[in-house]
């Protein structure tokens, strides 16, 4: 009782802390300092080979880092397990909007040694949207083609993949923490490039925006990947998709190294994918058992 009360007080304190400009300045300085240590190579104009610009990342990360520190009050477990060099982060996906991807990205930047910029593999429609494509590219996100992923890994980058895709992100609340079917593309790329896979279990995101239903047909008609119905969406418009202040707990597992032929039959690949899926499932289970409450 008193524990949860203290939790509420500290949560309010954290929220208030976010409003003070001093904390903002500190966080901004911390981000700049972490970005200086990122191993990604940039050219004389400040861009990496895929259009990422450190100065843009800095601007884009600040609001995300505020959410990370003061709204979701994120914690990481086992982040010291990230191996240097090329790396695939494979995580569960949930919460209607990809705040989980953003938080994972902030975690690898603020907490990992050396700091890494997690490169997301985006949807094909992102390049077609003005400004959105620009923001995505400058902050290190790419269109999710196999070629792009192989390119990044061969250059020693850290790529994050959510093999459940929208199946996971827009599932309904009764399915929370139940891993949906995994795509197999990431495993073939890992085998092809001999990249270690770090399973990641994100606890919290699955409660951030409980989905009541997903009207796939309507979504398709509107050209959207899904059309979730939640307690607040679409009733409050786009604002209705804002997440609840759940606490994020991001669990990193031991790196998994797979051997084999990238061109193997689906059955062989799926077996390996299943091992990753299980590892994530275990991380989620442990993470849920250990946490005191969803919001604290």
């Amino acid at each position, binding site marked *: 009782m008193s524990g949860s009360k203290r939790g509420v007080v500290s949560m309010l304190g954290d929220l208030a802390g976010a409003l003070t400009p001093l904390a903002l300045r500190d966080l901004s300085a911390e981000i700049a300092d972490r970005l200086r240590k990122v191993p990604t190579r940039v*050219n*004389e*104009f400040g*861009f990496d*080979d*895929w*259009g990422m610009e450190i100065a843009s990342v800095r601007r884009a990360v600040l609001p995300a880092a505020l959410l990370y520190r003061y709204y979701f009050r994120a914690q990481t477990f086992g982040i010291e397990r990230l191996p240097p060099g090329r790396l695939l982060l494979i995580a569960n996906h949930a919460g209607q909007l990809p705040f989980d991807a953003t938080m994972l990205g902030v975690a690898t930047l603020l907490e990992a040694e050396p700091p890494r910029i997690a490169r997301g593999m985006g949807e*094909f*429609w992102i*390049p*077609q*949207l*003005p*400004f*959105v*494509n*620009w923001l995505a*590219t400058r902050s290190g996100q*790419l*269109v999710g*083609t*196999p*070629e*792009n992923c192989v*390119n990044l890994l061969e250059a020693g980058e850290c790529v994050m993949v959510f093999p459940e895709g929208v199946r996971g992100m827009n599932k309904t609340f009764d399915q929370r923490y139940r891993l949906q079917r995994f795509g197999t593309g990431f495993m073939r790329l890992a085998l092809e490039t001999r990249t270690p896979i770090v399973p990641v279990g994100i606890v919290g995101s699955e409660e951030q925006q409980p989905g009541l239903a997903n009207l796939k047909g309507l979504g398709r008609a509107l050209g959207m990947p899904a059309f979730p119905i939640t307690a607040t969406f679409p009733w409050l418009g786009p604002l209705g998709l804002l997440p609840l202040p759940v606490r994020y707990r991001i669990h990193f597992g031991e790196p998994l190294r797979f051997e084999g032929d990238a061109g193997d039959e689906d059955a062989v690949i799926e077996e390996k994918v299943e091992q990753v899926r299980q590892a994530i499932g275990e991380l989620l289970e442990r993470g849920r058992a250990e946490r005191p409450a969803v919001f604290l």
Partner: protein
Amino acid sequence: MEKVLITGIAGGQGRLLARRLLESWEVCGADWVPWEGHPRGVTTYQVDLRKKKFEDVVRTEMPTAVVHLGMIRHFRGDPRQRHEVNVRGTKQLLDHCAHHGVQKLVVVSSGYVYGAFPENPFYMDEDSPLSASRTYPEIRDLVEVDTLASAFIWKYPHIRTCVLRPVNVLGYFVHSMIGSYLRMDRIPTLMGFDPMMQFIHEEDVCEAIALALQQGLQGVFNVAGPGQVPLHTAIRETGGKTLPLPEIALRPLVDRMFRLGLFPYPAGALDYLKYPVTLSGRRFVEATNFRPLFSLEEIFHSVRR
């Protein structure tokens, strides 16, 4: 000394190449327009590649190598004539090469043939489909030229044929599409889009051609330069002023103005200002150890405004 015949020798790239090859080759050239004040030692012929007179040039000069630069790459003239000159001209040239003992052939295509699409991966290799004409039908002749030349490699394997697809070429002399775009007074761009673009200096293109000739390279190769920057950075570095307009306004405007002859590029070209078209030059580097001499900064400096 071996003899090389350069088509399009009076153009910017042709002149540079002629001077570059003069040390180690006997150089002759053909072009539709004359080259006033060409260096001594270079023989030039003012001919149409589609005509019999050009075949006579190949037959009498008997070059061991041919570099094909003689293509129309602007849109100022009649599009049907442009298509004829480029496709039929190339076809005739390939036939003459096959029949008159040419041993080496370099065809300079371009990186535009892949096309600009949202699903483009970064750093496309030579096996990527040539889809430019899907959204940019005005350059389908360049795609056809590339395809003709690539097929020639397999048809006549004893002729060392090499198709080069360089990225955006800039320099003092060359008249490239991207060059004249960057030299516009106010440069129209698509609001909210800033794709990565690769550049290569005209001298480095000459170097790449010379390497291909020297080594008798066979195959299709992208030729990438020293690196890439977003479009707006390139415009700033070359001293230009942008005029960002929303796509919904710019596309019909460009379409209308191009048809009236008031704007030099068709609307399909806008996709190259929207999506990245970046090429992997790895295969060429591995085959030739090619290293561009000019840095991005030097390339941008070479754009005279």
